[in-house]
């Protein structure tokens, strides 16, 4: 499959994420949209990595180290994102307990 | 070693004072400390010579800065002023109560350490360090113990002086990089041969810093507010001693390092100073507040000193030297009177005062003497200084001297106006039950009056003390 397809798809996914983050007020939805953006980036990383990996295979068929980094990054991102989700969800839960709402605009004051 | 003691004693005493809780202990402790400092200073200045007055050890060697202290004639004069004023201030305001007395007196003593440091520093970085050490306690003193508008006023004061300090720091660093051996020592600054272009530029960096501190028109607007809002004992330190930092620094750091620029810009600065004198005197005529009147009067007097510094002749410079001391004594005397009136009657407005001469004759006599010293009547100390300064200005330019002389007339107008409104006439509601001033204030004022008259009749010792400095500044550039 040409790389362009991945790019188009990821761009779409990322844009959906951005629009969702910008427009929605529900903290959980915003959170999901952030995840969406992260996943778009992950996908793109894997796709590019794969592409570079193929290009990097020498004539002798020995695997080069060139394209592996991208996929390694994806794992890192997924791990960090998982940690982040747990913290983020905990914040949202606390926020719900305090305000009985998950509306992000409700928390516009920085103090008190 | 004497200068080291003079800095260390107030520093340590000040730090100790922070831990004193009782007002009585703090007062007694700080008074005791200031008297010890006075004793050390007098011993050092009058009985010890030579090496005792100098000190030089490596400090920040990598940067080429040494902990070097030196005491010349001008330094002696200002050390005397500083060390005399603090006990005087502590005694005169002995009955004033401040919250957190330990911190109050601690900061006062720290400021004294900084002031003394400025007057003896022989190294630019050290000078800058003490300059800030003197200013920072005063910011706190103003903002924590001041009047109603203290925050805004201190802020203004801080911004003004801090901008000045920063400009000066830039100047110091520039000069530092110009020295061949990368040294902050005063002497290597003196030996610098700057190009005329950079001299003209750096001159202004320093001058503005000092002009703000003096203050010279038009950098003066922080001053009346700060004097008005600070607790009076802090005002005494500021106007009696601290403004002398600016004048002192202009003489020690400006004239010898930038000889060409000082000559070239002398006319601008003298015109500014003389304008400021007339301007401040005129404003003083319309004041209704004792503290603001003294503040503006002080601007006028400082303007004359600044003009005389740049008149570039020995007579004027000699006048500045002794006037630094005399103005300090006189203005502290006036502040003591202002403070006494405010503490007892709860107002500083002339319009609410009157007839005090009937109720408090001793106060009246002392205020009259101080007022006449303020307008430089002959046989008071200020006459000698002003006579020499006007003389110096006259040698520079006749018309400048004549214009500046008009402020002498205006000084009579506003000072006598104050005397009349406060002391004479019939008593009013507030002054009807006024009583005589307390013993400590009375005796301190008597001491000041004796200084005023003694130095007015026989000023020659002071002139002799500073003669060498004047010569060094003007001829050994």
């Amino acid at each position, binding site marked *: 499959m040409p790389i362009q397809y991945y790019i188009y798809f990821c761009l779409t996914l990322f844009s959906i994420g951005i629009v969702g983050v910008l427009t929605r007020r529900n903290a959980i939805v915003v959170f999901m949209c952030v995840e969406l953006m992260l996943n778009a980036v992950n996908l793109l990383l894997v796709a590019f990595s794969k592409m570079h990996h193929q290009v990097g295979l020498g004539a002798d068929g020995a695997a080069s180290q060139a394209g592996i980094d991208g996929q390694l990054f994806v794992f890192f991102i997924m791990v960090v994102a998982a940690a982040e989700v747990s913290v983020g969800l905990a914040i949202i839960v606390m926020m719900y307990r305090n305000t009985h709402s998950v509306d992000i605009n409700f928390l516009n004051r920085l103090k008190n | 070693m004497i200068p080291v003691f003079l800095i260390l004693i107030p520093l340590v005493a000040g730090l100790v004072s922070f831990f004193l809780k009782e007002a009585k202990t703090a007062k007694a402790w700080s008074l005791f400390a200031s008297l010890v400092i006075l004793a050390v200073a007098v011993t050092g200045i009058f009985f010890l010579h030579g090496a005792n007055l100098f000190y030089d050890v490596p400090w920040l060697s990598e940067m080429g800065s040494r902990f070097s202290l030196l005491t010349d004639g001008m330094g002696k004069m200002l050390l005397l002023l500083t060390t005399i004023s603090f006990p005087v201030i502590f005694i005169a305001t002995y009955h004033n109560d401040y919250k957190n007395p330990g911190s109050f007196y601690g900061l006062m003593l720290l400021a004294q350490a900084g002031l003394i440091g400025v007057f003896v520093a022989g190294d630019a970085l050290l000078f800058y360090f003490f300059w800030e050490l003197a200013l920072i306690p005063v910011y706190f003193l103003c903002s924590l113990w001041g009047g109603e508008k203290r925050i805004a006023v201190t802020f203004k004061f801080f911004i003004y002086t801090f901008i000045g300090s920063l400009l000066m720091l830039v100047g110091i660093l520039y000069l530092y990089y110009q020295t061949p051996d990368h040294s902050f020592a005063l002497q290597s600054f003196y030996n610098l041969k700057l190009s005329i272009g950079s001299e003209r530029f750096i001159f202004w960096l320093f001058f503005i810093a000092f002009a703000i501190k003096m203050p010279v028109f038009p950098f003066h607007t922080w001053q009346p507010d700060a004097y008005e809002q600070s607790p009076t004992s802090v005002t005494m330190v500021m106007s009696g001693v601290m403004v002398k930092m600016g004048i002192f620094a202009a003489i020690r750091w400006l004239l010898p390092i930038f000889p060409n620029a000082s000559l070239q810009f002398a006319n601008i600065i003298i015109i500014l100073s003389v304008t400021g004198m007339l301007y401040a005197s*005129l404003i003083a005529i319309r004041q209704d507040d004792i503290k603001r009147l003294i503040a503006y009067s002080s601007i006028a007097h400082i303007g004359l000193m600044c003009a005389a510094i740049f008149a570039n002749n020995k007579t004027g410079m000699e006048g500045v030297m002794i006037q630094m001391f005399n103005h300090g004594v006189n203005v502290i005397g006036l502040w003591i009177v202002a403070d006494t009136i405010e503490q007892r009657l709860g107002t500083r407005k002339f319009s609410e005062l009157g007839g005090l001469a009937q109720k408090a004759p001793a106060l009246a006599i002392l205020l009259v003497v101080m007022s006449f010293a303020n307008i430089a*009547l002959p046989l008071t100390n200020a006459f000698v200084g002003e006579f020499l300064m006007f003389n110096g200005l006259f040698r520079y330019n006749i018309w400048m001297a004549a214009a500046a002389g008009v402020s002498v007339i205006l000084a009579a107008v506003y000072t006598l106006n104050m005397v009349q409104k406060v002391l004479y006439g019939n008593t009013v509601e507030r002054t009807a039950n006024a009583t005589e001033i307390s013993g400590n204030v009375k005796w301190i004022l008597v001491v000041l009056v004796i200084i005023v008259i003694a130095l007015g009749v026989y000023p020659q010792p002071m002139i002799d003390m500073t003669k060498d400095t004047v010569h060094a500044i003007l001829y050994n550039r």
Partner: protein
Amino acid sequence: MSKLVFLVPLFPLLGFLVNGLGRKSMSKSLVSVVGSGAILASFVVSLLLFFDVKANGGAVSTLFNFIDVDGFKIPFAFQVDQLSSLFLLIITGIGFLIHLYSSAYMHEEEPQHFGRYFAYLNLFVFSMLLLVMGANYVIMFIGWEGVGLCSYLLIGFWFKNNNYNYAARKAFVMNRIGDLGFLLAVFWLLFKLGTATYGEVFTAANLAKLSSFDITAITMLLFVGAMGKSAQIPLYTWLPDAMAGPTPVSALIHAATMVTAGIYMIARSNILYTMAPATQTLVAVIGLATAIFAATIALKQNDIKKVLAYSTVSQLGYMFLGLGVGAYTGAVFHVMTHAFFKALLFLGAGSVIHAMHHEQDIRKMGGLKKHMPVTHLTFLLACLAIAGIPPFSGFFSKDEILTASYGVSPLYYYIGVAGALMTAFYMFRLYTLTFLGKFRGTHEQEHHVHESRWQMTVPLIVLAILSVVGGLVGIPEVFAEHAHSLEHFLAPIFAESAKMAEHHHLEASQEYLMMGGSTLAIIIMIVFAVNRYKKYQATEAENAGVSKLLENKWYIDELYDAVIVNPLNALAGFFKNIIEKSGIDGLVNGVGRMVSYGSRQLRLLQSGQVGNYILIMVLAMVVFFLIWFNDNTIVQLFNKLF
């Protein structure tokens, strides 16, 4: 003998200290003994010095170095020569009489204020002595400002009255204007010659160093000082107001001694003035103008002390006329005789005021002749002396000045004589309204009118004798060769000037004619004045026209207020309220306000809306991308993709 010199100012200084410090504990009689005794002691020493000077000439004695800097040296030194010893006698002699008089006049004061009064008076004498004894201009200036200070303190002696305080302040400030001129002249001398000591300045070598412009400028500036101290146009208005002080003060300070300081100073600097003809003309013109101008005002004043004050201004004008035409001896002579008769007039007026319980309006007096015979007689003698009737003292001194002025310009002479006629008129108007006619005060006042105590009458009598015979030390040469003993005594002081000046000698017959003519005119004037006011009724119609103008002193005070005081006040207000607050402070605060306005606007970005933050973040990233990859890269990227 010169070792005693420092004693002369020392006694009054001690008197000042003792009376000032002990004013609460000392009794009134002790205070007056100390106060008067100090001056008497000075007088005795002055007498000794006078005879010493007469025999051996002048001498300078130095106490210590006052100021010694690079460029000049000012010793604290006293010079007692013919001129200063004469002034010493006047100051301490009349000073003593007035101290004696004061001890009775001020007796109603509380002890504390009584002590204060004598302390001030002693301090005044001390300053005045410094002024005349100083051997250089700086010491003279010390005394010069010192007498100004004492004048201020004594005018405002009754400090509960605010009008008096204003008068005191006015006197001090106007004097200060003059003092500035004096000071500048001293600076000029120090600048050009490096000395202000008389003995050094007036040497031929030093005078040669001064260009004629220098001399003119110095003399003009010194004269400005004299205008202030000696109340000449345009700085005269403080003197009439100074009458707010106690009457003996007016007699001592504002008639006999302090106001003649200007004449002393010019007489002292006579060489400089002789070398500056332009200044001399100015001095003469100002003096003459003041003499006439003040005399016109005196014609219509109703306050007994105001009449005398304007008369003093007018007489001082004559002295300056004398100085201006080079008749230095005549001017000093007039200082002396004027000190006698004007002090007498003031003391007489004080005696009247005392008797009338502080009534000063002559319209409410009259007929005091029979109640106060001593005061009346002495006052009459003083009036005759000031009017210039021979052989009273005023005749000789005034005649000497007028004759000398005729030599310079006959116009001076005629105007001067016109002034003398006015003098005769207003003095006898004053005399007639006060002592002749019927009593016009209240009944109660009439009941209490009495002759004063001996402390007051003795000085009156002594001064009256001096006023009558004082002129005999200066009998014109025309009557007898070498009869003018004062001129011979003072000759060493004015010797240089006399050499330089050209002499106008009048024919003896013309001089007799002038004397006779003016005396006759004055007598006619006196008779006219006495007749005019003998039957004066308090109900006489209000004045209008010129006399209203005169009564209001030509509205000069109002003019000064409108032209100088009010504009300055307005300017000060403008500076205080506009320039200071809106201008400089506004500029400073403006910078601050701009910063804080900017940060307030910037703060709105920090709204707390998470959405906004993200939007800004996204936009920033887009912008960042656009900047980071220049146009070309982006175009290529797009081309590649699409």
